[in-house]
């Protein structure tokens, strides 16, 4: 099924908005995680982890699911397809992995936020978790940058399924209406 140009542009715009929004939110999260780890001011640490909880719940989690919906719709609605080109498969794999890892980290983020809301300072036993927030968000940022690069450069390479579909299409008689 090939989408109409108007619908395709709309889906592409939505996909870019969600993906770039997700990347921006992860950058904010990384900055907050670094400040939370290094700051000596108890009020700053408390507000940082409360903010991280809010950013995660209302921005990062919804935005991590949105490209998983718009991406496949966009690729299936154009001749690019979802399984024909390696770069599209790589993007899909990275998005799924990032979303799963994101969901796994929601619980510790909420724990940090709820503890920061109750206590004047975080217990020393939370240090490992604070470090993990920095590492996880830095890795997420790298993954999202790689995904953006894949989408822009579209590196060559068709899957065996892609070659098969292309051979099928070439075998069909050419029609001007297609």
């Amino acid at each position: 099924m090939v989408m109409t140009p108007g619908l395709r542009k709309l889906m592409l715009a939505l996909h870019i908005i969600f993906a770039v929004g997700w990347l921006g939110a992860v950058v904010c999260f990384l900055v907050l995680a670094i400040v939370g780890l290094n700051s000596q001011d108890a009020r700053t640490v408390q507000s940082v982890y409360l903010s991280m909880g809010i950013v995660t719940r209302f921005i990062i989690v919804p935005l991590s699911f949105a490209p998983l919906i718009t991406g496949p719709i966009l690729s299936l609605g154009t001749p690019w397809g979802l399984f024909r080109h390696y770069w599209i498969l790589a993007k899909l794999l990275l998005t799924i992995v990032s979303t799963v890892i994101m969901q796994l980290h929601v619980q510790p983020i909420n724990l940090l936020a709820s503890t920061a809301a109750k206590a004047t300072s975080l217990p020393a036993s939370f240090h490992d978790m604070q470090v993990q927030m920095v590492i996880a968000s830095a890795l997420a940022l790298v993954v999202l940058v790689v995904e953006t690069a894949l989408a822009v450069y579209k590196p060559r390479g068709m899957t065996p399924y892609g070659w098969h579909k292309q051979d099928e299409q070439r075998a069909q008689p050419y029609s001007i209406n297609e």
Partner: protein
Amino acid sequence: LNKDGALIIDVDLQPSYYLMHGTDQYIQGETGMSQNRATPRWVKIFLAVIIALILLVVILHLTGNDFGGHMKHLGLELGISRLWS
């Protein structure tokens, strides 16, 4: 064709055109008969990096050097809930 007679290609709708004239000389020759169907090197490197990262995470989790992994979170949460109750 636009009003000046120039050919306009929408690469989003023409993947084969993009791959032929885009970032790499992907399909060689006018007839397109000499196509390289081997898995590109970047795909192999990408898979190797992904597998290495997965193995690294698994090993770190198994050895307990996972910067406060998820099992620790659960234990920590139980401790905190007892602390506050």
